[in-house]
Each structure stands twice: as structure tokens, then as C-alpha cells.
């Protein structure tokens, strides 16, 4: 096999993984740690793309747009949390599903009203255009390299925040036993708003970052959301490290499936069958991956601490 292609595909998978990670990281904070099933996390991805995209177009700079998007998304996140979700923490997951589904409908329609059905295209600044040579005959789009770098930095920062700081401890404490954390002096409502805001920023960042590649479209977050759920489940819920590993794994496997599955299938199947089985199988691949991992490790790759205690 062509090693240039192989490496390029690995990079592609890596880059997809990074986007998934940004989504999954927010989810794992909000769902894994605060135990809130937020289907509207996908909407935040979309809103990030539209709001960030608009800011980019207004300021005529992607960098400025991204910088301005951070406080904007944070504010939106906190607002959504305060208005709609705050009282839902103590409710069942199913109630949360229903309410946040309502949010999805609302946000999608609101976005359509504000930006129109055609979505939003965000140009890439000239200095991010083009490809870079990575040596050994590999050239790779510069912007995708930038995505990978940003994602790695965010991953590191987030890991430190959650695992190493008191903030992270308090969030985890509040999530596992709200009442008790409150009785020990933790201001849970404020803390959770903060976390939700951070989750919103991460989702928004993912949305904006991908927009110069895919453009912003209404409902763009929903399929990504499912993938992000797959990721956090594979990684082990509540684990930022798990989300990172699983996101990369998912990204790479998905990409590898899309690139090489047809070739592999040709080894076993007649061309006709391979041609029709290929796309089906490659779309199933990550689900097969997830089912397989859960079958052997029902708690994901990095089970959250405390989940394995004796009954």
C-alpha cells in the first residue's frame, strides 16, 4: 500500500478525531460529570458555527471571530442553562432528553429564521489556505494541521482543568452528590452554569473550526452529536482522557474504513458485492467498533473512577 496515502489518511483520521474530541469533551463534562443528557449540545455546535461565522464575516477575520465567539458562546451556554436546564439536573435522563430535544427544535428553527435555510459559508483567510509539505512527499492542507494543533492544546488544558484543579474536583463532587456538595459549601448552581458555559464554548469552537471546511448548515450538529456520544461511551463516561483516546480512535477507524475498506473487501468478495457492501460496512464501522468495545468492556475503555466498586 502507498505509505503516503496511509499517512495522509492517518492525519485525516486524526483531524476528524480532534473535532469529535472537542464535541465529546463538552459532552463528557455536561453529561459524564454533571449527569445531564444534553441533546442540544449539537445545537451549540451549530450555533457556534453560525455565531462564530457571522462574527468572522463582520470582523473579516477568522481569528478575531473565534476569539469573540468564546465569550458569546459562554454567555449563550450560561443563558440556556439558567433558563431551561437548571431545574433538570435532578430529573430523570428521559425528562432531560425530552426537554433538550425541544431545545433542538427551537434552535434549528430560530437559526433558520435568523440566517435563512441556506446556511453560512465562512471563507478561510489567505494565510491558512493551501497545503504544507510535511516531508517524505506528504503534503497536507495547512488548515487541517492548524485544527489538529488547536485540538491538542484544548485537550491538554481541559485535562489539567478537570483532573488537576480544585474546580474539577468540585464539579465532580457536585455531580455525584449535589446535596452533599451544597452542604459542604459548594455553590452548585454557579458551578454548573460555569461548566455548561465551558461545554458550550467547546462545542461552539468545534462548530466554528469546521465551518471553513464544511460550511454552517442547520442541523449540522445532530450527526456529530451521535458520534460524540459514541466517543464518550467508548472512552468511558466522564473521562476527558477517555474521550480524547476514543475520539482519535473513532476518527481514525472511520477514516480508514472509508479509505481502505473497499480494497480490503475486494480480497474476499467479488467486485460487485464489494462495491455495494463497502459503503454500508464503512458507515457501520464505528458502530461495530462501539458495540465490540462495549461487549468486552461494558464501561468503556477508561471507566470512570468509582464505577467498579463492589455492590
Amino acid at each position, binding site marked *: 500500500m502507498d505509505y503516503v496515502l496511509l499517512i495522509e489518511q492517518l492525519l485525516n483520521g486524526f483531524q476528524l478525531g480532534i473535532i469529535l474530541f472537542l464535541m465529546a469533551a463538552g459532552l463528557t463534562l455536561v453529561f459524564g460529570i454533571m449527569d445531564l443528557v444534553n441533546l442540544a449540545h449539537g445545537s451549540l455546535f451549530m450555533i457556534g458555527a453560525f455565531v462564530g461565522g457571522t462574527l468572522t464575516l463582520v470582523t473579516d477575520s477568522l481569528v478575531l471571530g473565534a476569539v469573540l465567539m468564546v465569550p458569546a458562546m459562554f454567555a449563550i451556554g450560561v443563558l440556556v442553562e439558567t433558563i431551561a436546564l437548571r431545574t433538570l439536573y435532578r430529573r430523570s435522563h428521559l425528562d432531560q432528553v425530552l426537554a433538550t430535544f425541544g431545545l433542538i427544535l427551537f434552535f434549528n428553527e430560530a437559526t433558520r429564521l435568523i440566517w435563512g435555510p441556506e446556511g453560512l459559508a465562512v471563507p478561510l483567510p489567505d494565510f491558512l489556505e493551501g497545503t504544507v509539505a510535511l516531508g517524505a512527499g506528504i503534503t497536507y492542507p495547512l488548515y487541517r494541521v492548524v485544527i489538529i494543533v488547536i485540538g491538542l492544546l484544548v485537550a491538554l488544558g481541559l485535562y489539567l482543568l478537570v483532573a488537576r484543579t*480544585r474546580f474539577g*474536583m*468540585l464539579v*465532580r*463532587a457536585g*455531580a*455525584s*452528590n449535589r*446535596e*452533599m*456538595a*451544597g*452542604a*459542604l*459549601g*459548594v*455553590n*452548585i*448552581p454557579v458551578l454548573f452554569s460555569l461548566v455548561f458555559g465551558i461545554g458550550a464554548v467547546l462545542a461552539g469552537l468545534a462548530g466554528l473550526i469546521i465551518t471553513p471546511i464544511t460550511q454552517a448548515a442547520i442541523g449540522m450538529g445532530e450527526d456529530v452529536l451521535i458520534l460524540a456520544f459514541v466517543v464518550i461511551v467508548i472512552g468511558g463516561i*466522564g473521562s476527558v482522557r477517555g474521550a480524547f483516546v476514543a475520539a482519535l480512535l473513532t476518527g481514525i477507524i472511520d477514516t480508514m474504513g472509508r479509505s481502505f475498506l473497499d480494497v480490503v473487501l475486494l480480497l474476499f468478495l467479488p467486485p460487485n458485492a464489494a462495491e455495494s457492501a463497502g459503503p454500508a460496512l464503512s458507515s457501520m464501522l464505528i458502530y461495530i467498533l462501539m458495540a465490540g468495545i462495549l461487549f468486552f468492556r461494558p464501561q468503556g475503555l477508561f471507566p*470512570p*473512577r*468509582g*464505577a467498579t*466498586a463492589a455492590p
Partner: protein
Amino acid sequence: MLEVRRVNAFYGDSQVLFDMNLAVSSGEVVTLLGRNGMGKTTTVRTIMGIVRTRSGTITLNGTRIDHLPSHAIARAGIGLVPEGRQIFPNLSVRENLIATARTPSRGGPGWTFERVIELFPAVGTRLASAGNQLSGGEQQMLAIGRALLTNPLLMILDEATEGLAPLVRQEIWACLGSLKKAGQAVLVIDKNVEMLAGLADLHHIVEKGRVVWKGTSAELRADRSLQLRYLGV
């Protein structure tokens, strides 16, 4: 310091506390005694703002706290060792201790991580384990340590010796004794009347959500019929 006056509290429609009265002065060790299901824990939960009063007032050092949210009450200076331990299962033992730690508001040395470990060496050996991997007794010690580290004005211990080995239980009584000596105010709920009588300044017997008797250790010891009637001892 803490004053609970004519507090009524409900779970849904069923009233659990009826004109509950209670006071703890600084430096005092005060108990709540009573049989199962009489409302001791509910009193504590009401003080902490987890259960809301329907009427009556609760003040801490003269300021009303009954309408504050839980976390504000805790920050006002109450440290809770809850019934049933309530360790954070997903935090390590070390994190359980330091996550909610606060420096003493009065200044002075107060409780530090090191001092708590010294008090409970068994906890000290498991610092990296997840909270819920500890044995029942270890969790109990952890819960006490966690409350101490908030350096409260008033400690509330709700059945803090449940499930502890006799040796450890003795240690906790000793610890309470030294807390008392250090001038720490304590509100304690426990089944062990014998020990409490040797330790506390003032006792309250709770029956069906009311304080039906209040008195000193000597008075409590003296009145066998009282003990039999309300405590089944």
C-alpha cells in the same frame, strides 16, 4: 450561636418537625437523642437548608440562615458529617478531603490536611483510592475529616460512629472530646447515650418531631425512666 426556633418542616404533605426548638452556644457540645424516625436527621437537614422550613427561624450568630441556600449556610460556618457518610464516590480520598476544604474564618491554625491524616491514619493509607472503594468505617472517618477541613464554627455529626470498629469509635469520641476542649461547638446525634452523657453539655430528646426533654448530662443520667421511655435504653 445556633438557634432553631419553632421550626415546622414537611416532606411533601407530611409534617415531620413540629415547633422544633434547639440552641447551641459556642464551645458547647449538644446532642439530639431519640428513637428511629423521630426527626433528628430532618432537623439537621433543615438547619442545612436541604429541607426548607415552613415556619420558624434558624439563626447562626444572630443572622438568619433559614432562607439561605445550603452552600451559603455551610460557608457561614456549619460543617456536616451526614447520616450514611455520603462520600463522593468519583473523587479520590485525597480529593474528597481537599475539594471542599476552607481555611478557618477566625484565623488561627485550624484543621489542615496533615492533621486530619494524623487523626485517621487508616484514611491516610488510601489517599489515591476512589471514595467508594473504602470500607464502611473508612468512609465514615473520611466524612468526618472532610467536615473538619471546612473548619466550621459548628460541627454537626449525624450518627458519625455508625459502623465503626470499637477502637475507632473510641478515637472519635476522643476526638470529639478534644474538639470540645479546643472550643469547637458540636451538635451530635448518636445512639450511644452512655458515651454522649460523658461528653456533652446539653441533651435534647426528640420525639415525633418535637423536643420533649432538655437537660444536662447529670439530669439525663439521673432519670432512668426518661431513658427507658424515649430512648429504649
